[in-house]
């Protein structure tokens, strides 16, 4: 089937890019730990490509997970799905050329006016290649989510019904609630269309500013738009991927995991809170309206509730005394929910304004999101890869896969925790060099990362074997 081939392409490209980005991450940690010599320009180029590539590749693979399950309930456009992949690859090439051929290194957050004002470290061409690359990738995703929205509205009548608001209001029985894939698809459509419009706006303004520096715009508005895009888009990766957890654990435990009112309310809360909480990235901008910053804290706390009370709790309930047969896909699905839940803790702590005052932009922040993404979202993608290889390709798992599974847990946890320890020691993030007292955790993380890459390689090799067998 054409769409299955496309899904495989999405996952192979996403998986390989994630693996390569891990390598850049390790090189940076080893350099910070004093185990490797990297010049600062090279370090910041690696940092830019690592952030951009990881978010882009994880979003690409996660969108394939969502597309696979959502297309079982609604009619999605294969052309748009294909177009998104092509636009992603075009954008990726532009980003790579911008970073490695034209020395562009603004970090993936590209805070205005850094793309233009680089202290002559990179030129206009590098900035334009990167920004146009990002814009093209964003347009591809925007088309994809407009299509998912269109398909859901056609099937359900409205996005509100996609979130099951008619069931919450009591107009429909719980048994007629939308399937989890539709609910998650609706949530992701709403947040990502909003995020991508915000992102495209700020990227276009940056492009115009780069071409004509006489055109300027408000740096605070730019910062708001950048985080409204970056936070929401990165956050959506886990909401796209979690569909595989609902589907797999229900199958493996032979227990139903259907939406009820609490489930629907939780997803509606996630939709609203995910859009609102980006201001927790701006808690150290006291010129922001104070109420927006307080919202950043309050709703960051509240955003933890749907996962802590509904999805994680539901995972524990469905697995508890279920007689589940563990294999790589069910194991990874369960692990991913652990990673998501445990990653919520340092996130909530850092969203507390008085804590953020001394921990913002320390390595605590990557500590939280490496846990949340590395043990959560990305593991969901790996769970899906193993699931496809099993149900579609009949590929058997080996002892090596299990070794990779346990190695991945230990090493990803080690990488995440060393970031948290560094953050508690006030180590700044995004620093090419470290003082001797900051080096220990970074070096430890770099060494753990080497084994993490080996484990991830084994996951990817398993999936590539399935793809090759099929073709």
């Amino acid at each position: 089937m054409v769409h299955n081939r496309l899904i495989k392409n999405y996952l192979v490209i996403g998986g390989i890019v994630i693996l390569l980005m891990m390598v850049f991450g390790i090189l940076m940690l080893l350099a910070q730990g004093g185990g490797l010599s990297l010049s600062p320009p090279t370090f910041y180029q690696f940092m830019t490509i690592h952030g951009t590539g990881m978010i882009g590749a994880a979003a690409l693979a996660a969108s394939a997970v969502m597309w696979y399950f959502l297309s079982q309930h609604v009619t999605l456009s294969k052309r748009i799905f294909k177009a998104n992949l092509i636009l992603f690859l075009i954008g990726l090439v532009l980003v790579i050329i911008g970073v490695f051929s034209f020395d562009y290194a603004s970090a993936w957050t590209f805070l205005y006016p850094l793309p233009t004002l680089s202290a002559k470290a990179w030129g206009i061409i590098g900035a334009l290649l990167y920004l146009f690359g990002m814009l093209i990738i964003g347009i591809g995703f925007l088309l994809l989510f407009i299509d998912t929205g269109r398909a859901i509205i056609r099937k359900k009548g409205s996005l509100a019904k996609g979130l099951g608001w008619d069931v919450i209001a009591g107009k429909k029985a719980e048994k007629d609630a939308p399937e989890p894939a539709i609910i998650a698809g609706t949530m992701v459509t709403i947040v990502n269309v909003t995020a991508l419009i915000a992102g495209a706006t700020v990227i276009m303004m940056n492009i115009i500013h780069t071409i004509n520096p006489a055109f300027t715009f408000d740096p605070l508005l730019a910062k708001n738009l950048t985080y409204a895009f970056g936070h929401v888009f990165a956050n959506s990766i886990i909401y796209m991927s979690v569909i595989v957890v609902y589907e797999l654990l229900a199958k493996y435990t032979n227990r139903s995991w259907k939406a009820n009112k609490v489930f629907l309310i939780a997803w509606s809360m996630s939709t609203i809170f995910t859009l609102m909480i980006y201001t927790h990235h701006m808690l150290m901008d006291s010129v922001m309206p104070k109420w927006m910053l307080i919202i950043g804290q309050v709703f960051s706390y509240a955003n933890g509730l749907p996962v802590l009370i509904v999805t994680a709790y539901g995972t524990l309930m469905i697995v508890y005394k279920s007689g589940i047969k563990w294999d790589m896909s069910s194991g990874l699905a369960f692990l991913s929910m652990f990673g998501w839940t445990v990653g919520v803790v340092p996130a909530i702590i850092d969203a507390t304004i008085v804590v953020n005052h001394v921990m913002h932009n320390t390595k605590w922040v990557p500590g939280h999101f490496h846990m949340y993404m590395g043990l959560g979202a990305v593991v969901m993608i790996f769970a899906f890869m193993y699931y496809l290889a099993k149900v579609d390709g009949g590929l058997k798992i080996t002892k090596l896969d299990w070794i990779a599974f346990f190695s991945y847990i230990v090493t990803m946890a080690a990488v995440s925790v060393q970031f948290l320890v560094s953050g508690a020691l006030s180590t700044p993030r995004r620093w090419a060099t470290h003082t001797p007292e900051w080096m220990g955790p970074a070096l430890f993380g770099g060494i753990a990362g080497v084994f993490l890459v080996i484990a991830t390689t084994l996951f990817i090799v398993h999936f590539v074997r399935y793809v090759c067998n099929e073709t």
Partner: protein
Amino acid sequence: MVQTVAWITSLVFMLLITFIFLCVAMKSTEKRDYEPIKKKWYKARTFYGVTLVVFMLIITIYTLRELPYDQPVYGKGEDPTIVDVEALQFGWELSQSEFKVGEAIEFHVTSQDVNHGFGLYDEEMNIIAQTQAMPEYTNVVYLTFTEPGTYEVLCLEYCGLAHHAMTYQITVTN
């Protein structure tokens, strides 16, 4: 110290979550009917959910009582020292760099070019306060040093290839 409290609190909750997931994983291969499990644990969820919400509300109220954005109430005749801070690629300009212990200070922080982060570190290299240095805007840090020593300003927002070289020293005496 806030950092230590944050680390220990996180560690406790992360270990608790790990313990719960491990317990469930270990009980997962037993097979029982799902309906009684659902009935029992849905009931428990109500209690757990309410407890969690109340706990979060208490923490929210407690931590929002005093915010770093609020100007302290100064005593009569106690005027704060206003320090103008300007960031630029790749250095800091401060209108004053020597202070006394107990002196109320307001750092008015802005940037001449891109976004920077004004991070104040004590002698043990722990952050004691920070704010963003933004072009066209001025963020304020309210601070009273309680210990003499040499403090460092580090850039905490990525600002270009010499971001890590953007440091500045402040002296505080008795």
